[in-house]
């Protein structure tokens, strides 16, 4: 099942929460240079980070495997 192997491979490189923090830092850095505001995309992106981290934390690959094995 390459999908599960792919998931294990990319797990370490998905860094949504790090990226969100980077957005905040960039915002702070730009305040001194120009006038900027936060658009609705930022809030939705924050929500996306919460939901995807939550999903990643609650996903248990062993359930997938045990269900697959029960079927065969």
């Amino acid at each position, binding site marked *: *099942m390459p999908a*599960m*192997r792919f998931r*294990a491979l990319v797990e*370490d490189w998905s*860094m949504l929460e*790090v*990226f969100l*923090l*980077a*957005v905040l*830092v*960039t915002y*702070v*850095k*730009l305040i*001194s*240079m*120009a006038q900027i505001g936060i658009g609705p995309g930022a809030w939705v992106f924050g929500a996306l980070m919460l939901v995807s981290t939550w999903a990643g934390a609650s996903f248990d*690959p*062993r359930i997938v*495997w045990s269900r697959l*094995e029960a079927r065969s």
Partner: protein
Amino acid sequence: VSAAALTAAEAGFARCEVCEALVRWGEVPPDSERRCGRCHSPVHLRRPNSIVRTWSLVLAAYVMYLPANLFAMTVIISMGSSERDTILSGVLALIAAKWYPVAILIFVASITVPLAKLLTLTGLLLSVHRRSRWRPRDRAELYRVVERIGRWSMLDVFVLTLLLALVQLGSLATIEVGRAGTFFASVVVLTILAAKSFDPRLMWDAMEERE
């Protein structure tokens, strides 16, 4: 069999690192490769060439660490004059602007974490070489911390890309990536790869040897 716990290897099994199934190892040599019967990933008793790979990645990261901190990370060109900032001078500028939390954040993520990671991995590698029996639980915990915090060093790389994309005000102001950018990104990627190639089970092997 050690008193504390029975390991899969002692029972004649290897654990698949992808799906966590136990693969019967049998009489095959310990350093060979098998396929997991469940998910078909390659399975090893210990990650192959773990020590050599981790050493080379750690050493490469040390080499990159110096230019990453000495060269300019960002070059801000505004109104015709250009201003170069290294990682440290960027932190100092944030302190001067009284953005203390952000300054601490950048300092920890970009300077402390990569160096601490490199030193910790070096220490763990040396402890495996010396077959050390010193505080194995703490060393295992140390490895888990290194594995978990590595990703946060990407923070400065992301900030850099965002600034680069956002600040394109033509003749008014532009930001360019200095030479340190590539070096810093490679330090972060190399240390993440190094942490992944180190096999913490090697530390426990030394514990079982002399029992």
